[in-house]
């Protein structure tokens, strides 16, 4: 019937209706930008509830981030100890200085060993007298009670705990050696603890990331529910799903951004609170340099920001994908 002619007329009109491709392309970015700030404006209309949600997100993000920063410092600390691994060889009494320097030369050729330092018993006594405060008492001794000492520095390529253990066994077999000493056990324990802590942070981090997703998802679900009418109207006048989705996705993004900003503040604030007592503690160990916590670095702050934003977008996407389909005009 007449449907053919009417459909061509209709199509002619359709073409008039559509903006040009380049215009749509340009408008696409402008609209994105507008929606980007429009969604921010919507959040600022309810500052209190926005702040509450962002604070909940901030706390959830701050916990794993703070633990990570502390662990990172602990790792650096243990890294410092790696380089000062040293093995003390106490030489038997009565071994001549000549054979000691022979032994020193022999050990220096070992591939496992970077350097061997000889500490003469006389020098050691002098140093002990000067530093210990027992100088006068020691002067009363007829004999020097200290043995000769060889300090062995393992080479960096043989720095793993198992390799050092093997080296210890080898050194114990040497005939001139009385005692071999290495305080490596606490280092091994520290490594083990750091390993466990790393796993722990991974678990806590994953759980809290999930919590962030759920918080944002739920917040967006409520936002969708509040604007159900608007969504219906938009659908009726021809809005695509992606058009309707957009402001909610950006809302999720903003929540993620605010949450991670709050998290950065919380972590740095906590670091500042801990840093003084920690500096005091390390000064008790007579080592100021070893354990001082600075603020969060730029790269970890950026990582935290980025993960916050991504989690925000993801949580919003999940909620939007699920709930927008349920809202249809009736």
């Amino acid at each position, binding site marked *: *019937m007449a*449907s053919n002619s*009417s459909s061509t*007329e209709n199509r002619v009109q359709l073409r008039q209706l559509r903006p040009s491709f380049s215009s749509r392309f*340009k408008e696409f970015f402008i609209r994105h930008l507008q929606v980007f700030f429009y969604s921010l404006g919507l959040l600022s209309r309810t500052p209190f509830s926005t702040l509450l949600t962002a604070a909940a997100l901030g706390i959830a993000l701050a916990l794993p981030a703070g633990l990570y920063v502390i662990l990172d410092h602990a790792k650096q600390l243990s890294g410092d100890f790696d380089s000062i691994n040293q093995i003390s060889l106490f030489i038997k009494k009565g071994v001549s200085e000549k054979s000691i320097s022979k032994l020193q030369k022999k050990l220096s050729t070992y591939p496992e060993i970077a350097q061997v330092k000889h500490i003469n018993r006389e020098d050691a006594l002098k140093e002990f007298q000067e530093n210990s405060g027992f100088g006068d008492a020691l002067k009363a001794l007829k004999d020097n009670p200290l043995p000769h000492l060889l300090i062995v520095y393992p080479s960096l390529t043989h720095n793993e705990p198992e390799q050092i253990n093997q080296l210890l066994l080898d050194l114990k077999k040497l005939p001139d050696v009385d005692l071999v000493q290495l305080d490596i056990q606490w280092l091994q324990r520290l490594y083990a603890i750091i390993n466990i802590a790393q796993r722990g942070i991974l678990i806590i981090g994953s759980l809290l990331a999930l919590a962030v997703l759920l918080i944002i998802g739920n917040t967006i679900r409520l936002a969708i529910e509040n604007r159900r009418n*608007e969504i219906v109207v938009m659908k*009726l*006048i*021809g809005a695509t799903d992606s058009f309707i989705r957009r402001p909610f996705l950006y809302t999720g993004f903003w929540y993620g951004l605010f949450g991670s900003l709050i998290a950065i503040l919380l972590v740095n604030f906590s670091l500042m609170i801990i840093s003084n007592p920690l500096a005091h503690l390390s000064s008790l160990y007579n080592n100021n340099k070893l354990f001082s916590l600075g603020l969060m670095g730029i790269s970890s702050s950026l990582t935290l920001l980025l993960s916050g934003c991504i989690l925000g977008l993801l949580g919003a996407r999940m909620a939007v994908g699920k709930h927008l389909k349920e809202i249809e005009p009736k």
Partner: protein
Amino acid sequence: MILFDQVSKRYKGGNEALSNVNFHLHQGEMAFLTGHSGAGKSTLLKLIALIERTTTGNVIIGGKNLNKVSRHTLPYLRRNMGIIFQDYQLLYDRTVFDNVALPLIISGFSSSKVRKRVHAALDKVALLRFEKKYPVTLSGGEQQRVSIARAVVNKPALLLADEPTGNLDPDLSLEIMDLFMAFNQVGVTVLIASHDIPLIKQLGKRIVHLEHGQLLTADEN
């Protein structure tokens, strides 16, 4: 423009809202859809706007079979129709201007074009001076005119209205109907569901009567 070919619609739960409806509305034609509440007027409009889908039969709009329109392409089809409701369906947190601009923004027009078109549409419904107001501050008739401006701002080929004067007194109703007549005069196809028989008889347009889901009068003039 609109072709119903042996269309039936049965809702879940079993009541048949439309049974075997055949109906044709030409390009540029204007018709009224009448009948008691529950006669199927709204269902018929919903099938055109793809708010509901047919149980059997085909609805063809502008040469396009609606059974073949997917969820994904549906929005683009709706952009070519203006839909007007009894309860206006305006967004009350936005100004009159923003309400009317919405279809253009959805289609991706530039801001300057949006402004021009919105002003033209508001001018046609004589509400240009209210563009910065919020809908709540307007009377029912004015709100309905805003919704009409929003429906025509995209220059759709087809206008659908479901009881557009249902909440308005007779004078305002006539005013609204005159607006539809004016759009029809410039070539827009118009289909209006209304049970205000005295009013629509006065306008001298084609009247399609539905009763218990069946079409009683389908004269094509």
